[in-house]
C-alpha cells in the first residue's frame, strides 16, 4: 500500500512526476494548471535532482522538452489550452523525431483566451493532430485525481516504449479538485540512456543526430510509413477503457474524463428510473476503443455521448458504430459542466419521448 | 637565412572553384584550371613553385580541400 494523501489534481500530477523519476520539467504558468510548476518549484530538485525550469513561453518550454528528450531523459511539461496551442509546432517535431515525452493539458474553455473554467474542447487538437503533418499523440484521459497520479507513470512508460509523445488530457475541474490518492513509491531516475540519445558522440561509433527533416520525399514517405505502422501497433496493443453495466444495457452513455464521472451518476439515476443504461469510458482517446462501441452497437437502441464541448468525441463514436445504432450528443460548452439531471433529461427527451 | 618551402595537395573533387584562395595567396601560386571536376566546377591548381606553406589558402578555403606542408630549409 502506497502513501495515502488528500491532494489537488494538479499537485498530485506534479508529485507523481517527481516519483516517476522525471529528469526535467519545463513549463510556463497558465491557469488552471499553474500549481504544477509551483509544486515542483518547492523541493523537487532537492528531492531527486530533477531540473525544474520556468520557461519564457510555452513555445520555449516545448522546445526545451525537445532538447532534453533528445538526450534520452524523462521529461514532462504541462499547460492549459492556449498554451498547448503554442506547443503544437514543437509537438509535431517531437512526434516526427520520435522523442518520448509527456505533457498534460489541463483544458479550459475556449476558443481564444476563453475562460479558466474546465472544458473538453481540445479533444480534436489532442486526438486528431493539432500540429502539422500526419502524426498521433497517445492520449490518456484521467477522470480522477488518482488517475492523475497513475497516468503519469503509465505515460512515461508508453512514451519510452513507443518513442512517442503522450498527452494526459484532463481539465480544470480535475486539476483543481481535491481527492484522496494513493501514491506510488519514489522511483530512481535513469542512469542509462538509449543509443539514439544525443549524450555526446560515443567513442568509435558514429555521431547521432535528431531531426525531422528529410528533404527526399521517398525518405519522408518512409518515415511516415514507419510512424503509421507504429500508430497501428499502438491501436492494437494500448487501448484502454472502462465499461459499466453493458451486459443488460439497452442504451449506453459515453464520455471521457470529467464527463464520464458525471455520466456515472446519470447512469445510476436512469437505472433507478428503470432504464437499462450502461456506460463506456474511453481511457485512451488515441488509441480510441473502437471495438467496444462496435460490439455494443449491435445490441443497444442508442448511445448518448456526453462532452464538455460542441461534440467532438462523438465523431469517433459514430465512426466506431458505423451506423449500426443511433448516436446522439449532449454537452455544454465554454467552461460549463453538465449536471447528471440535465443528462437524464436529455436522455429521456432523445431516446424515450422521441423529441429529437 | 632560413627559407620556407611549401607544398599543397588539393582535393579537386571537393573544390567548388570559389577562388577565394587565389586572392589569399601572397605568392600567386594558385589559379583556376579550365578543366572541370565531377561536380562541374572549375577547380584550383598550383601554377608555380613559390609556395611557402603559409596556409592562407587552406584557412580561407570554405570546403577544406587544401592540405598544406611546409619545410624550413636552413641555408648557410
Amino acid at each position, binding site marked *: 500500500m502506497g502513501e495515502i494523501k488528500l491532494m489537488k489534481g494538479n499537485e498530485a500530477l506534479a508529485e507523481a512526476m517527481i516519483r516517476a523519476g522525471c529528469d526535467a520539467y519545463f513549463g510556463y504558468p497558465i491557469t488552471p494548471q499553474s500549481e504544477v510548476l509551483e509544486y515542483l518549484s518547492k523541493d523537487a530538485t532537492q528531492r531527486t535532482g530533477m531540473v525544474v525550469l520556468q520557461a519564457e513561453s510555452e513555445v520555449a518550454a516545448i522546445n526545451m522538452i525537445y532538447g532534453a528528450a533528445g538526450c534520452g531523459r524523462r521529461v514532462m511539461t504541462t499547460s492549459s489550452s492556449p498554451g498547448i496551442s503554442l506547443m503544437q509546432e514543437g509537438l509535431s517535431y517531437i512526434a516526427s523525431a520520435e522523442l518520448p515525452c509527456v505533457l498534460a493539458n489541463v483544458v479550459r474553455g475556449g476558443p481564444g483566451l476563453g475562460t479558466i473554467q474546465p472544458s473538453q474542447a481540445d479533444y480534436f487538437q489532442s486526438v486528431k493532430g493539432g500540429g502539422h503533418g500526419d502524426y498521433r499523440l497517445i492520449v490518456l484521459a484521467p477522470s480522477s485525481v488518482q488517475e492523475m497520479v497513475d497516468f503519469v507513470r503509465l505515460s512515461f512508460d508508453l512514451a519510452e516504449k513507443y518513442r512517442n509523445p503522450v498527452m494526459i488530457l484532463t481539465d480544470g475541474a480535475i486539476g483543481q479538485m481535491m481527492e484522496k490518492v494513493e501514491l506510488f513509491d519514489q522511483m530512481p531516475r535513469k542512469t542509462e540512456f538509449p543509443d539514439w540519445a544525443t*549524450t555526446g558522440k560515443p567513442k568509435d561509433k558514429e555521431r*547521432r543526430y535528431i531531426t525531422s527533416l528529410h528533404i527526399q520525399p521517398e525518405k519522408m514517405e518512409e518515415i511516415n510509413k514507419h510512424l503509421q505502422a507504429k500508430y497501428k501497433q499502438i491501436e492494437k496493443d494500448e487501448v484502454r477503457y472502462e465499461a459499466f453495466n453493458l451486459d443488460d444495457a439497452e442504451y449506453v452513455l459515453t464520455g471521457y474524463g470529467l464527463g464520464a464521472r458525471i455520466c456515472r451518476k446519470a447512469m445510476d439515476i436512469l437505472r433507478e428510473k428503470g432504464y437499462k443504461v450502461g456506460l463506456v469510458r474511453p481511457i485512451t482517446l488515441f488509441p480510441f476503443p473502437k471495438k467496444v462501441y462496435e460490439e455494443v452497437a449491435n445490441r443497444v437502441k442508442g448511445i448518448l455521448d456526453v462532452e464538455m464541448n460542441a461534440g467532438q468525441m462523438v465523431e469517433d463514436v459514430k465512426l466506431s458504430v458505423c451506423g449500426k445504432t443511433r448516436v446522439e450528443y449532449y454537452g455544454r460548452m465554454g467552461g460549463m459542466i453538465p449536471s447528471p439531471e440535465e443528462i437524464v433529461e436529455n436522455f429521456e427527451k432523445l431516446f424515450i419521448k422521441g423529441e429529437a | 637565412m632560413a627559407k620556407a618551402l611549401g607544398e599543397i595537395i588539393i582535393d579537386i573533387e571537393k573544390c567548388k572553384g570559389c577562388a577565394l584562395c587565389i586572392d589569399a595567396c601572397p605568392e600567386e601560386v594558385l589559379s583556376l584550371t579550365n578543366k572541370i571536376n565531377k561536380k562541374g566546377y572549375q577547380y584550383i591548381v598550383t601554377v608555380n613553385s613559390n609556395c611557402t606553406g603559409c596556409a592562407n589558402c587552406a584557412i580561407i578555403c570554405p570546403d577544406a580541400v587544401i592540405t598544406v606542408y611546409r619545410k624550413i630549409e636552413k641555408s648557410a
Partner: protein
Amino acid sequence: MSNNIETAKFRPEICVDENLVYRKPSTLLPEPFHYCPGCGHSTVHKIFMEVVEEMGIENDIIGVAPVGCSVFAYHYMGVDMQQAAHGRACAVATGIKRVQPDKYVFSYQGDGDLAAIGTGETIHAANRGENILVIFINNGIYGMTSGQMAPTTLEGMVSTTSPHGRDVKTQGYPLKMSELIAPLPGVAYVTRQSVHKPANVRKAKKALRQALEYQKQGLGFCLVEIVSNCPSNWRMTPAQANQYIDEKMLAFYKLGDIKVPEVK
C-alpha cells in the same frame, strides 16, 4: 592518396606528416558541404570542428542546428546534434544543457533564426545565463529561402523583399543582436568576428575556442557573431561578397569583443 587528389607538383618529397601545417579536421565528416561556393557557413563549420578536434571534446559536445541554410549542419559536424524548429535553437540547447551540465553545448544559427523568429528564445537563454555557446552567422539575408530581407539586412541593402533597398522607415532598422545581448548579466562573452580574410578566420577560430573555454569554466552565455557572406543571394562572386563585407557590413557591424568576462 586517392585519384581525386591533385598530387603535389613541385615538392612531393616534403609532403610528410612532420611537415604538415594544415589538413581538414578529423571531426568534419566526409560529406561535401551543400553550401554555395565561397559560403562562410562552410568556413565556420570547418574552423569550429578544428576547435573541437584541438580541444579533444568530440565525445563531450552536443550541437543544435537551426532552420536555414545550416539546417544540415549535422551532416558535416561529426558530433552529436539535434535539429531545432525555426528560431528555437536556444531553447533546445537549454534543454540539452540543463540535463547534461557536464557536456559542452552549442547552437549554430543564422540571422533569421536567431534575430527574427528566435529573438525571444535567444534573449531569455542569454538572460538566464545558460552556459552554452551560440554561434551566430550574420550575412544580412535569408539564404535558404533565397534572398529575402533579414532583421540584419543593412539600410539600403537590396533583397528580394526589399528590392529598392531596405527602407528603414517602413522596414525597420538592422538589428545589432550582439550589442543587444551583451549588457545582460547572464552573458559572459560576446564577440563579433568575420571569416572573409585568412587573418579574420584565424581570429574567429580563437574566439570560438575562447567561448568553449569559458563554457568549461561555467561562466555563462557566450555569443560569437560571425559576419558572413551570401554570394548567391547577394548576386556577387565570392570575392566580391567578401569585399562587400569589408566595405559595407563591417562599417555597420564593427568587429571585436563586445563583452569579455571580468578577470577575477
